[in-house]
């Protein structure tokens, strides 16, 4: 029976900003689903606050609402659009929770909206721990297998403490109900830990509920991805085995598909349980993922949990198998059955089968602990990784080594040459799961550990341990061989050794190894991911490399453009870059090129086999890219390689690619150098007569001190060639300068430290622009809300700029053009300026797509990345204007006066991290970027747009209640007006004594509250931290005090994070918030789709 005829329109809820545990995978899933639904002729209405997604591109849905994903806003959208159905299973926990809450509030019933994809009962059965336990029991009664870990449900600390006795003592696992990515869960080994973890868990859980469980630490961990249709057909799409045993969140584990260490009987048992669960839970149409633990000693199976929706794992499973789970889930939701949906890859066979893999997939997590030095780096059941890389090989060792080098992080690959260390120390270290534990294990093996010792310390399955030994033995053979003979080289490549690794082991240069390898004819072949282990011919060119015999790359006649993606998501290089790569692929395909995507990030739209004509799921190292270029050159003409859209990763390869004879299109490697090298860029600025803050470069403390003394403190220091402000800091005195240089590992004679004058109180401005060699198209001008000194990625900004006038824009345009011309840009450039006093300083220029390209594109309704891709391949701005890709006249600097105002707000991952004592990490913004994602608020006036951005990022701004204000001295003057406004809006102010005094002198009444350092008062007066914890504060304004006196603020801000109280850490943000509160109180906040905004804008332009 084909699709339902009673559904004409459907509302899809996205997952909002990228946060840890909910990332780009939902853009991939959501984009697939929206396209399918649209192709089926339904009117697709989308809500997602994240501008950096392909999903929110206006052509993906019929009505795209970049609005906060809160029940309040979603109801406004429903009231306006009146959809027939709501599909909540594609936007992660955010969408599911929003849908449930709308159901509970009766909104869905009120507007006659049917929930499709999952019913409320099924969602509750899958998500509620107690109900799910009942499901598992029912399954066991039916089929005889599967059980839950012994556990107790607790609603208070008393329950929790009693529960431990019921379970037979410590350690126990704490899992809060209804939280995302396992937030708030962890292992408690004693009462102190239990009180902390469970206390937090009770707070985090929207139902004040946690589950205590027997410990199954060290067991084998598996996941199955299942799909079910309305006819009760069920397929298991993929099995995934965790390399790291139980105790590490699956998002933080190295995982392997298919499972490697199960016999058929054990696998079929998991399959039977999985199928029985999806039936018992009642997921009627769609996917779910189920996690299992298996006791390695006797095979006892425990069902851990299920997610009745698409997930990070389902995205991984889709990429690992070629079976597009989200796409098929969308089809099932509107009435199709699995046997009615064709398998895209074979075209001839139906989707009602189970993929068979003739390769091994390894996923490795990417962490960002270096951004949060005080955070505890132990991996637990709370997910902490910010991204992941996936690699495919014909065996485990090959896939593993490819995955590790895909992480593109210092030390992520096995080191077979460095000093080893003490075996016992290493084995002891390996007990604690951490980022890079696998490397510790390899050191231990090199230090002489036995397989039994490694297993004893890590509980990693002996088969995996043996594979690590295999890699190490090959490294030994490489080291011991008299010369690199072809068999040995081929064997090493078959096990995933990179040219660089072999070079290291042999004491050669990487390019020498490559030359030898090519001379010996040892080159990779490219195999196809085909869902069926070659049983049927594959129509979709989805490739991975392997050192095997036969290549499957077909010849082609059209010229190809190879687009290099951005690799694993990390802080500073995320989904925004994937957005630009995907746009390039679409635009170049339209322009008649064969598009070839190279990327290793399984979460993304770029690695959907549907996005480009060909997909290479490969690491983005020079070696891997050169081999792909070689293979594609053999297949047909190659027009060029695009490096400027995937962020710093491909940009960093530009020069080496060119040196190897690869045609790099767009901005030349020399031009990239002119922008990135301080000296060269300085000359560009000097020639154009543009001022930059005083600066210098040094490789030693003495050098840095001399510069700082000359230009005066505070100075901004950072290593050269980094993205996301890595290691960047504002230094206020010589003492800190000395310790900064001493601590920094990134500084060396070839990588100097940059010392800049820090511009206090400057307005920071970001510009995205296109340049074709003669004409500049100013894409957009963004004014930061926070002052200079806070990383642009962490700063909120407004477009069009809210306080800059025509004269300023003119100056910005002239400066941008001069730089673009001087550097030699062909495509996109992003420039950061600081306006201090009346001087416009140039802070830096990036000759590539920036993080803000998707935001700018959506705010101005112009596809900048598409235009950049075309310019790279020779089109001019004038031609693109004529084609209609760019507006006929004007640009992002000449937006009409009534153009909508867009505000971008960054989303920070504070709540994910704890220090070793279990306390939160500080939330102060600084020059080093730490946000994981962003939201956009768009409206006709700034205040409303800002309020929407806050609602999208952190939850709605309060419109009344109690506001606590405590600001640094330098902020006291600027605080007065916004504070007065808060009072005018009916807020009751609380302040610490110093701030209260200033407020009172200005005629503003504020209650003095005790600082944490003052302790509880004689009559039980609570400190501010206690007040926050008790929920007695609705808004917090707390700006940090320069270098010292931070501790009190730290406690306040971490309490705010724990209680989810809005916390503003700059006065500029306070001023913006006041405008937002003002808008909310006026009660005229409406919703408007991007399509409507664009129509309005285009009408105004004409």
């Amino acid at each position, binding site marked *: 029976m084909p699709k339902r005829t009673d559904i004409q329109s459907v509302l899809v809820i996205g997952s909002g900003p990228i946060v840890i545990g909910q990332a780009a995978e939902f853009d991939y899933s959501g984009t697939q689903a929206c396209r399918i639904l649209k192709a089926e002729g339904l009117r697709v209405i989308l809500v997602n606050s994240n501008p950096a997604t392909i999903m929110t591109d206006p052509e993906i849905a019929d009505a795209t609402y970049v609005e906060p994903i809160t029940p309040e806003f979603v109801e406004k959208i429903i009231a306006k659009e009146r959809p027939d159905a709501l599909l909540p299973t594609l936007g992660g926990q955010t969408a599911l929770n929003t849908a449930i809450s709308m159901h509970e509030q009766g909104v869905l019933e009120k507007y006659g909206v049917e929930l499709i994809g999952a019913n409320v009962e099924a969602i509750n059965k899958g998500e509620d721990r107690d109900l799910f336990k009942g499901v598992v029991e029912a399954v066991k009664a039916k089929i005889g297998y599967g059980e839950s870990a012994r556990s107790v449900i607790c609603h208070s600390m008393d329950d929790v403490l009693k529960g431990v006795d019921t379970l037979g003592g410590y350690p126990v696992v704490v899992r809060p109900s209804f939280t995302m990515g396992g937030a708030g869960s962890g292992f408690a080994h004693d009462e102190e830990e239990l009180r902390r973890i469970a206390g937090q868990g009770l707070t985090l859980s929207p139902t004040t509920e946690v589950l205590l469980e027997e410990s199954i630490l060290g067991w084998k961990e598996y996941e199955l991805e299942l799909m079910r249709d309305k*006819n*009760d*057909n069920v*397929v*298991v799409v993929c099995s995934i085995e965790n390399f790291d045993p139980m105790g590490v969140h699956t998002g933080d584990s190295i995982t392997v598909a*298919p*499972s*490697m*260490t*199960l*016999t*058929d*009987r054990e*696998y*079929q048992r998991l*399959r*039977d349980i999985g199928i029985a669960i999806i039936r018992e839970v009642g997921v009627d149409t769609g996917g779910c993922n189920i996690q299992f633990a298996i006791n390695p*000693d*006797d*095979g006892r199976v425990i069902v851990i949990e299920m997610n009745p929706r698409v997930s990070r794992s389902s995205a991984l499973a889709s990429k690992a198998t070629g079976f597009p789970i989200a796409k098929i889930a969308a089809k099932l939701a509107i009435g199709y*059955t*699995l*046997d009615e949906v064709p398998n895209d890859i074979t075209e*001839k*066979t*139906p989707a*009602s*089968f*189970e*993929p*068979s*893999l*003739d*390769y*091994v997939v390894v996923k490795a997590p990417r962490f960002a602990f270096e951004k949060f030095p005080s955070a505890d780096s132990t991996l637990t059941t709370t997910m902490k990784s910010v991204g992941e890389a996936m690699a495919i090989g*014909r*065996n*485990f060792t090959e896939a593993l080594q490819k995955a590790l080098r895909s992480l593109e992080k210092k030390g992520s690959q096995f080191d077979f040459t460095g000093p080893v260390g003490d075996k016992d120390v290493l084995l002891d270290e390996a007990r604690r799961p951490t980022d890079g534990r696998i490397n510790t294990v390899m050191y231990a093996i090199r230090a002489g550990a*036995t*397989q039994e010792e490694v297993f004893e310390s890590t509980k990693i*399955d*002996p*088969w995996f341990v*043996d594979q690590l*030994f*295999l890699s190490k*033995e*090959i490294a030994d*053979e490489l080291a011991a061989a008299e010369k690199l003979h072809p068999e040995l080289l081929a*064997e090493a490549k078959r096990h995933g050794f990179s040219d660089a690794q072999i070079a290291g082991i042999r004491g050669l240069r990487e390019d020498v190894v490559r030359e030898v390898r090519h001379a010996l004819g040892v080159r990779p072949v490219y*195999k196809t991911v085909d869902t*069926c*282990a*070659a*049983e*049927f*011919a594959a129509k979709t060119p989805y490739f991975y490399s392997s050192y*095997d*015999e*036969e290549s499957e790359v077909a010849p082609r006649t059209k010229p190809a453009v190879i687009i290099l993606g951005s690799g694993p998501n990390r802080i500073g290089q995320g989904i925004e870059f994937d957005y630009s790569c995907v746009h390039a692929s679409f635009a170049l395909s339209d322009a008649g090129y064969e598009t070839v995507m190279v990327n290793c990030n399984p979460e993304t739209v770029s690695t959907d086999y549907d996005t480009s004509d060909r997909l290479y799921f490969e690491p983005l190292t020079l070696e891997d890219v050169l081999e792909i270029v070689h293979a594609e050159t053999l297949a047909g003409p190659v027009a060029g390689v695009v490096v400027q859209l995937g962020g710093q990763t491909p940009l960093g390869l530009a020069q080496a690619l060119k040196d190897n004879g690869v045609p790099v299109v767009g901005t030349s490697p020399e031009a990239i150098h002119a922008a990135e090298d301080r000296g060269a860029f300085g000359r560009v600025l000097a020639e154009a007569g543009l001022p930059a803050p005083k600066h210098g470069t040094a490789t030693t403390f003495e050098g840095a001190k001399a510069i700082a003394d000359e230009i005066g403190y505070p100075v901004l220091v950072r290593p050269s060639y980094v993205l996301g402000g890595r290691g960047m800091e504002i230094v206020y005195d010589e003492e800190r300068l000395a310790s900064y240089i001493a601590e920094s590992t990134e500084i060396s004679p070839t990588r100097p430290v940059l010392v800049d004058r820090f511009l206090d109180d400057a307005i920071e401005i970001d510009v995205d622009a296109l340049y074709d060699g003669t004409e500049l198209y100013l894409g957009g001008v963004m004014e930061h809300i926070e002052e200079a000194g806070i990383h642009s990625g962490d700063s909120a900004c407004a477009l069009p700029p809210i306080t800059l006038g025509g004269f300023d824009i003119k100056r910005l345009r002239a400066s941008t053009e001069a730089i673009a011309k001087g550097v030699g840009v062909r495509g996109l450039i992003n420039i950061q300026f600081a306006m201090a006093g009346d001087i416009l300083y140039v802070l830096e220029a990036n000759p590539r797509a920036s993080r803000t390209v998707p935001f700018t594109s959506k705010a101005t309704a112009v596809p900048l990345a598409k235009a950049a891709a075309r310019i790279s391949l020779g089109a001019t701005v004038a031609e693109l204007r004529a084609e209609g890709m760019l507006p006929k006249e004007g640009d992002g600097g000449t937006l009409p006066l009534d153009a909508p105002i867009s505000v971008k707000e960054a989303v920070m991952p504070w709540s994910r991290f704890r220090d070793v004592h279990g306390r939160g990490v500080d939330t102060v913004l600084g020059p080093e970027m730490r946000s994981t994602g962003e939201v956009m608020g768009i409206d006709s006036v700034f205040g409303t747009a800002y309020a929407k951005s806050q609602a999208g990022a952190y939850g709605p701004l309060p419109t009344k209640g109690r506001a606590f204000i405590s600001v640094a001295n330098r902020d006291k003057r600027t605080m007065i007006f916004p504070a007065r406004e808060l009072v005018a809006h009916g807020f009751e102010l609380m302040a610490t004594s110093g701030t209260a005094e200033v407020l009172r002198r200005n005629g503003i009444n504020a209650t003095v509250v005790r600082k944490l350092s003052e302790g509880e008062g004689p009559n039980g007066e609570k400190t501010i931290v206690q007040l926050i914890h008790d929920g007695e504060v609705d808004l917090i304004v707390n700006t940090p005090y320069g270098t010292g006196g931070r501790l009190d603020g730290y406690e306040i801000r971490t309490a705010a994070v724990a209680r989810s109280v809005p916390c503003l850490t700059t006065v500029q943000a306070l001023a913006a918030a006041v405008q937002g509160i003002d808008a909310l109180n006026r009660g005229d906040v409406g919703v408007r789709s991007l399509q409507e905004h664009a129509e309005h804008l285009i009408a105004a332009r004409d």
Partner: protein
Amino acid sequence: MTTSTRGAAKAPAVLVLEDGRIFRGRAYGAVGETFGEAVFSTGMTGYQETLTDPSYHRQVVVMTAPHVGNTGVNDEDPESGRIWVAGYVVRDPARLPSNWRSRRSLDDELVKQGVVGISGIDTRALTRHLRERGAMRVGIFSGEAWQGVRDEALLARVKEAPQMEGADLSAEVATKETYVVPAIGEKKFTVAAVDLGIKGMTPHRMAERGIEVHVLPATATAEDVYAVNPDGVFFSNGPGDPATADGPVAVMRAVLERRTPLFGICFGNQILGRALGFGTYKLKYGHRGINQPVQDRTTGKVEVTAHNHGFAVDAPLDRISETPFGRAEVSHVCLNDQVVEGLQLLDQPAFSVQYHPEAAAGPHDAAYLFDRFVTLMEAERA
């Protein structure tokens, strides 16, 4: 503890296809030479079951899953008393088995049972070759069988090996003596199972349902079958070309004439096809895997099933056929290629499937067919 040199130090080996394509790798399992029909299996789990499935007699099995042997060898999972495959082709054999039930390594087991194999070749290239050119004869050579022998000479040997088409192999793999698998729990029925290469799980699935299974040799006559006074008769899977199975076809016709409830699996399905007057034919490269979508046309439901067949029944999908035993229809079909996967008679209690509801290896989706057999026997008794 194994060492790295174990696999690498093994002797060179070569795999020669009858059309002249050659793959060079390392010996796996026993060293020597072997011949058979090259077929590929796409199952990612269950190598022990595959190796011991009598239907693979005289076939050289290519595993598309690259890692084989990871869970070692245990004593519970074999489907018969020995390894039946003629040769074994894998890409990356395990150096160290890891599983709580594992007793020994697969490599050792292959050596012990004298199964010649090859590892380290591009199994995907070989699979694609077989897919495009069809299943064909193959030889694997290592040690003295390979040393100093020219490729042309090896190819000539391969071409001398017997073809699968026209091969009558059931008697070679089936039991010589009748044996009884007792019912688990209360005994409800007696079934005579004609062993044409039966897998151990099949009588077990029946025994679980209260059936006492009398497993008879492939050469059993109708008198032998009725000597056990059966409530139902079962025809098993097995190797070879169904066109040669005249004996079992005759026995089946006798059973059909007596209208005894009848169930056939795999080879048994082909025999039912022949007994009803349909033809059988050789598929280009067969169905061998545990992920095949089969639709039960009586309910419309899709089941994911285990397959191992190189031949199929040629019956019309679009209509009911008149046969000497009344009306018959195709009850099950493979959704990948519309191959007949099941037959049923509409006027008397008899049905069969081409695939493996007993699974082992494979999903348990089709286990309901054993219940269907029980229902037929219950109805007959009532």
